[in-house]
């Protein structure tokens, strides 16, 4: 790494502080950008991001992009709330999704025809606070086991609670809770004389709610409670001996997270206009956790950013085969650019890949016409660029499957071998990756979506375990 120009001054606190400071940032100009953004300050950054978010629809976002944005912001709100429990207080809550469901069902029951002869139709400014308050109480109740259970044992009890919520809404009192048919015909968010019925309306509402929630949590972060949470996360015993009421602090964390989740739930229920038990099952929880940890647990901005990134990729980009193709090739290029160190090695690998591809294509064409009969299946300019480079047989399924298996084996080997072998194996791997993509993966966009998100999660955690905006922490071994 770079050495300070003044030479090492081991023992001088300032020098040590500068080294640590330097290592926290990304190398070269990216680090400079990071430092510049830090100088702006948290509140102005929040305001800028909020304004950008609010301005996006006017750049011409269609109904689908707005829906993706709404889904992403709901998950971002949930991630920000989960950050309170997991990131700040260090409590692994695997039943968090139940608070989201509670908020949604609570709003649904208070704003539809479900209960009573004509139903209850409270306006939003009444029903949302009621639901949030009830969720806080529920959070306290769920948090009670945390007095006796720690770590993974607490996790399992919260998991039970989460699963129990889905079972409960699915099977208990179907006439009141709707059973598997859920509750439909939920009122939109209604105020004194206005109501929000369009996707654009919910988008703006969510931007406002997300920004306000992040602001409130920021204030909480720097309050006594926030400091108490961080103390309890690092070392509960030490915190207790410093007169922090550990049990109450843990309960407060649960309640805080629950309130944010319930808020997200109410907006979700209003926008979807229907709630079903399967909406609140474990796969959604996995998305929230992925977003939170990818963005950096412990950081409000990180939680929101991670969730937005995960959802925009998973729910938005990967649903369209063309854009999934851009993402696939784009990520490969980015990884190469970031990881292949001397620029001449990178250029060499790319040139070899291109040459290898053309050679293989020509040879295959000469031997077997049908080996190249199918065209690249990606949409857009990639297909035309790759037409003479990648081999796509006419009947591709078996070949594609074998290629996939070989590709995975090659990738695992690449990690093990020495750097020289890695450079040699890279061009064939890249050609094979393109082959598998064009032949097989593009044919099954729905399956490929899951594959890609899994691969992205693995690679991103490998590259930056602390998350995008997280801080590197050292955990005391238990």
């Amino acid at each position, binding site marked *: 790494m770079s050495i300070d120009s003044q030479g090492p001054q081991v023992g001088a606190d300032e020098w040590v502080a500068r080294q640590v400071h330097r290592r926290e940032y990304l190398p*070269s*100009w990216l680090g400079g950008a990071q430092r510049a953004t830090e100088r702006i300050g948290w509140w102005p950054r929040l305001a800028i991001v909020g304004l950008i978010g609010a301005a996006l629809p006017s750049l011409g976002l*269609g*109904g*689908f*992009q*707005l*829906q*993706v944005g709404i*889904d992403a912001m709901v998950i971002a709100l949930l991630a920000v709330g989960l950050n309170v429990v997991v990131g700040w207080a260090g409590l692994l809550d695997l039943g968090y999704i139940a608070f989201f469901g509670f908020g949604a069902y609570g709003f649904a029951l208070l704003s539809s025809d479900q209960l009573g002869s004509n139903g209850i139709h409270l306006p939003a400014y009444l029903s949302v606070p009621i639901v949030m308050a009830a969720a806080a109480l529920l959070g306290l109740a769920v948090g009670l086991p945390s007095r006796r259970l720690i770590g993974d044992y607490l996790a399992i009890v919260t998991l039970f609670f989460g699963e129990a919520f889905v*079972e409960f809404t*699915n*099977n208990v009192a*179907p006439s009141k809770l709707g*059973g*598997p*048919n*859920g509750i*439909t015909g939920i009122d939109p968010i209604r105020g004194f004389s206005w109501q929000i019925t369009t*996707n654009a309306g919910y988008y703006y509402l969510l931007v406002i709610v997300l920004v306000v929630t992040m602001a409130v949590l920021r204030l909480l972060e720097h309050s006594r409670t926030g400091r108490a949470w961080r103390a309890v996360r690092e070392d509960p015993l030490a915190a207790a001996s410093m007169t922090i009421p550990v049990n109450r602090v843990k309960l407060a964390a649960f309640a805080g997270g629950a309130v944010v989740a319930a808020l997200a739930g109410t907006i*979700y229920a209003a926008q*979807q*206009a*229907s709630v*079903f038990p*399967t*909406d609140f099952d474990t*796969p959604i929880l996995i998305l929230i956790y992925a977003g939170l940890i990818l963005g950096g647990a412990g950081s409000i901005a990180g939680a929101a950013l991670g969730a937005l990134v995960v959802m925009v990729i998973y*729910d938005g980009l990967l*649903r*369209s085969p*063309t*854009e999934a193709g*851009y993402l696939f090739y*784009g990520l490969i*290029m*980015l990884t190469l*650019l970031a990881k292949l160190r001397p*620029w001449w090695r*990178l250029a060499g690998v790319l040139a070899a890949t291109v040459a290898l591809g053309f050679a293989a294509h020509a040879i295959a064409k000469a031997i077997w016409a049908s080996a190249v009969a199918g065209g690249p299946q990606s*949409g*857009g*300019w*990639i297909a035309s660029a790759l037409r003479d480079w990648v081999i796509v047989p006419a009947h591709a399924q078996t070949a594609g499957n074998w290629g996939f298996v070989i590709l995975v084996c090659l990738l695992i080997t690449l990690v093990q071998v020495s750097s020289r072998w890695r450079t040699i194996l890279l061009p064939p791997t890249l050609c094979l990756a393109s082959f598998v993509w064009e032949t097989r993966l593009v044919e099954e*966009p*729905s*399956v490929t*979506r*899951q594959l890609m998100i899994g691969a992205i999660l693995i690679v991103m955690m490998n590259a930056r375990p602390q998350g995008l905006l997280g801080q590197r922490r050292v955990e005391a071994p238990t």
Partner: protein
Amino acid sequence: MKGRLVLVAAAVGSLAAAGCSSSSSSSASSSGSASTASCVASIGFEGPITGPVAPLGTEQLHFAELAVSMDNAANHTKITVVQGDTQLQPAQATTVTQQFISNGSIMAVVGPAGSQEVEAVGGPMARAGMAFISGSATAVALTTGKYPTFFRVVSKDSVQGPEDANYIVHTLKPKALMIVDDQEAYSTGLVSAMVPVFQAAGIKVDHESVSQKVTDFSSLVAKVTPQTSVVVLPWQVAANAQQFGRDLAQEHKTAVIFGTDGLFSPGTFTISGSYVSSFGPDITAIPADAAIAQAAQSKYGSFGTFGPPVFAATHVVDEAIASVCKAGQTPSRANVLAAIKQTNESASILGQPISFDSNGDLNGGKFFLFKISSTGKYQLIPS
């Protein structure tokens, strides 16, 4: 160092350019891409292609694609299928629906598979004026006029449930029976239609419930009493019913299984002596469907009951688009919707004519009852 910077900038720049050009090309295609010379359109397919009921959704997708390829050949159209994975979750169905609505080349949608998903997307579809035909959503509440652009090619629970229940009461005449739902809307809907019929006939009913995720039924089977001669399984997953049947045999219970459409799966559910009631016929036994069955078998392997209705639904859409083109118009959502409303096919893969009533229900939906022989073959019981 500078070299890497240039490379990074070039890569990012080319990706951005690609992104811009792709969005502009897709917006170009959204402005009425069909000409009278060649009929070009897209159909959206919404189904649980991955996720907990992936076998169902994949079978539906395969049959939709088969229908489109066969109809393209017959009508000289250029229809493509755009798939959208819902994983049987209504929230994902909403997202996929928005994606389809934003895609200007999609004229109609086949799917979604679940009744809950129809409830979630019915409103947006109606606002966009986009027709959507489901091959498997059977809840009664869907065709009460709430969703003016919804159609289905299968009969609803309020028809199937009582018919099956009456058959059981009058022909099988059990003294006691067990009915198990799988905690999904399809199943609970049928159960609530059937149980009153049983109770009115004075049969002792043991109503159980297991989640679709459960694959071990030995504990439940142990509860089957010697007097229970019929076990009714209105399930979606045939493989689970097969396991249930094995557990029955292993614990030496003599009860006979009566299943509904989900169990119609000649490759998977083969418990001899069982009854299966299906809204779709066994297309391998219909001579007119031989070509389709053959094509499906060779390309995709064995199939059950969820594929053929989706074939029928896709065929309805294909014919609607073709008729619009033949009339010299450019396909649009409005004229395709109008053409679908006027569908009047005298024959279909389902062995019956297809036309829709004013609420979108299939007119004259038939039910077929099968009994499984000792060799595992499905034999149609004449009504």
